[in-house]
Every structure is written in structure tokens, then in C-alpha cells.
């Protein structure tokens, strides 16, 4: 499965986790995602996502004055968004442990079958 497909389901939650930590503006958010390891992320992916989050009332935005020019839009988490984060963390942990188990099991099986012809 391509990385992008895996990423789709998880990106919203990750963005919210960042915003929950600290209010950010668009560019900051992309930087944070990159620092966390999402090196392939681009602004183009983030903007529509931010729109959807605001539409679903998981985030809200405020304009704050900036020394470099016009006010800048900062994204903040809402109570609904905080709830979403909790659910996300829980779901992710459950999912992660299930997948982890499968990978482990598969790993153990491979060890046992070492030397045998897997086609048989």
C-alpha cells in the first residue's frame, strides 16, 4: 500500500495534535509536520485539510498582528477538536498494537519456516 494512502486516514489527527499543542499558522504547521517525520508533506495537502477541520468545527482561526505585514491567520483547537484528538489517540494505539501483533506473528512464523519452501 502506498504511503499516501496510509497517510490519508491519519493526517487529520496528526494536524490536530500539533494544533492542540500550540496555535500555529499554515507555514508553521507544515514545518512541524516535516520535523515530526512527514518529510513529503506539502502546503498543498495542508490547506484543504485545514478548511475541512474548520468546517467541522474541530479548529477555529484567529487573526493576529504580524510584524511583517498584514494580520496572520492562526489555527486553534476547539473543545470538539480536543475530543477528536482523544479518540484519535485511542484508535491509533489500538490499531497500532493490532498491526504490531500481526507483524510480530508473521516474523515468528518466518523464523520457524526458515529453510522450508514457502510454496509448499
Amino acid at each position: 500500500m502506498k504511503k499516501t494512502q496510509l497517510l490519508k486516514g491519519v493526517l487529520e489527527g496528526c494536524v490536530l495534535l500539533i494544533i492542540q499543542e500550540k496555535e500555529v499558522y499554515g507555514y508553521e504547521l507544515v514545518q512541524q509536520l516535516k520535523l515530526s517525520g512527514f518529510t513529503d508533506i506539502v502546503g498543498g495537502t495542508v490547506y484543504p485539510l485545514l478548511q475541512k477541520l474548520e468546517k467541522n468545527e474541530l479548529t477555529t482561526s484567529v487573526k493576529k498582528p504580524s510584524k511583517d505585514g498584514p494580520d496572520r491567520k492562526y489555527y486553534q483547537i476547539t473543545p470538539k477538536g480536543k475530543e477528536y484528538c482523544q479518540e484519535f489517540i485511542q484508535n491509533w494505539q489500538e490499531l497500532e498494537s493490532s498491526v504490531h501483533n500481526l507483524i510480530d506473528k508473521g516474523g515468528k512464523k518466518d523464523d520457524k519456516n526458515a529453510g522450508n519452501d514457502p510454496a509448499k
Partner: protein
Amino acid sequence: MTKTQEMIQQNNELREQLNTENKTYYEEILIYMRLRDWLKDEEDIESKLLEILQDMISAQKDGISAKEYFGQEPKATADEILSNVPINWLDGLKILGLVFGISIFFSILSNLSADQYKINLLQLIVHSVTIGAGVIICLSILKKSTFEKEKTTTKLEILLFGATFVGVIGIFIASPYFISEAWTIVLPKEAALGMITLASVGVTWKVYSLPKGERLLWSGFLPIIWLFVLLAFLNYFPASSDWVQSSNGKVVVVTGVILGLIINYLIGFYAIKKMDVD
């Protein structure tokens, strides 16, 4: 100044901070998103455009190019962003009302020397809709041509523009034949005069409420509009209408109109120059 106008101005100023390459990349996105369906909320779109611009400038400061930052699929991304912008019915209605109003205005003006002011309602509606449709078609053609790899205007586009133009003119010419007289209403002269005076006052007021640069640009039209209103009044009073209809009168009228157009052109030219410098 409305919020939207303020944001557009800020955008114009801020854009200068981008280097040539980034500026070109961004401006394609800018034009594409501004040519949106005229129903989408303009304030929302300008807000998003400004946000993206600010972020691109931050990226540039960190040595990241606009393309690297925004991605390799600007058109697809722009489409996605636009799809999340809500439709603003009120603004759409305002624009439709404006087109309708302009049609009525010119319809009355073109009947200057007639004895009665006749307005054919259905024809008016057809004209307004035709202009509206024509404009939308032209904008769609422009929108599709943004992001084209080939910067040269293709023959197809020219053909489409031409077809639209011909279509609009054709409908204008043909409509009197197809639309029955039953829809015509006769306006008493006073009412017609009242309407165009009110409209001219409204336009003048609107022009003066525009931000400085735009105000100068549009104010060139005001003398012409008021000239026509004056003519309509002159035609109304028996004393002066004879003069207007006479050959002397007509010469003066034509000279006045040409002068007005020249002044308008000069003012417009000066205004554009001033905007570039600011």
C-alpha cells in the same frame, strides 16, 4: 473600503516580496482562484489567497521555493481549496442585479430622442441573461487557459471567444423579432428621467466610496453618464428639445460625447499609471 478590497490591496503589496520565479508560480494560482464561479464567497477566497501568500513568503525566507512549498499540483490543489469555499448567494444576486440595472440604464438612454420611453421587460431579461452568460463563458475559457503549459493562445480559444461575442450580439439583434410587443411597458417620461437620475446619483456615490486608485479609474465615466442625463433632460423640455434635435444641437452633442470619451480615456490612463507606481 470593504474587507475584500483591503485584502486585495494587501495582496498586491505583499506579492512584491516574492522573487520572480515564485511570483510567477503564485500569480497563476491567484488568477485561477479569482476566476472562480461568481457564486463562491469572494472574501473567503481572498483570505485564503493572502494566507497562502504569507506562507510562501515565509518559505522563501527559509530558502524553500514556492513550488517546493505548495506542491507540484497547483491546479488540483486550487480546485480542492475552491471546492471547500461556500457559495455566497447574496453576492451572486448583487452581481445579477447590477447587470440587470445596467441593461435598464442603457435601454432608457438609447431612447433619448424618442417621444416615449418604452421598455420591453422580456427583452431586458433576455439581454441581461445573455450578457451574464457571455461573461461566464468568457471567464470559463480564461480559467481553463490558466495553468496551460503552452502560453500561446490556442486557435480554439480565439474561436470560442469569437463565437461567444457573435452569439451575444446575435441575440441582441434578433431579440426584437422574437419577443412580442406585449411585454413592452411605456414609462412616463418623468419616471424614466427620475430613474436615470437616481441611477446616476447612485453610481456617482458608489464611485466615491471606492478606494483611491479605483475611484480615479472609474470617475472618468461619470462625466459621460451625467452628460447623457443632461441630454435626456434637455430633450424633455420642449424649449430645449428642439435645439437638441436640430443639426447644431446634434453637433454639440456629438462633440460633447467625444470630448467626454477622450477625457475618460486620459483619466483612466493616468489612474492606471498611478496605480503601478504606488
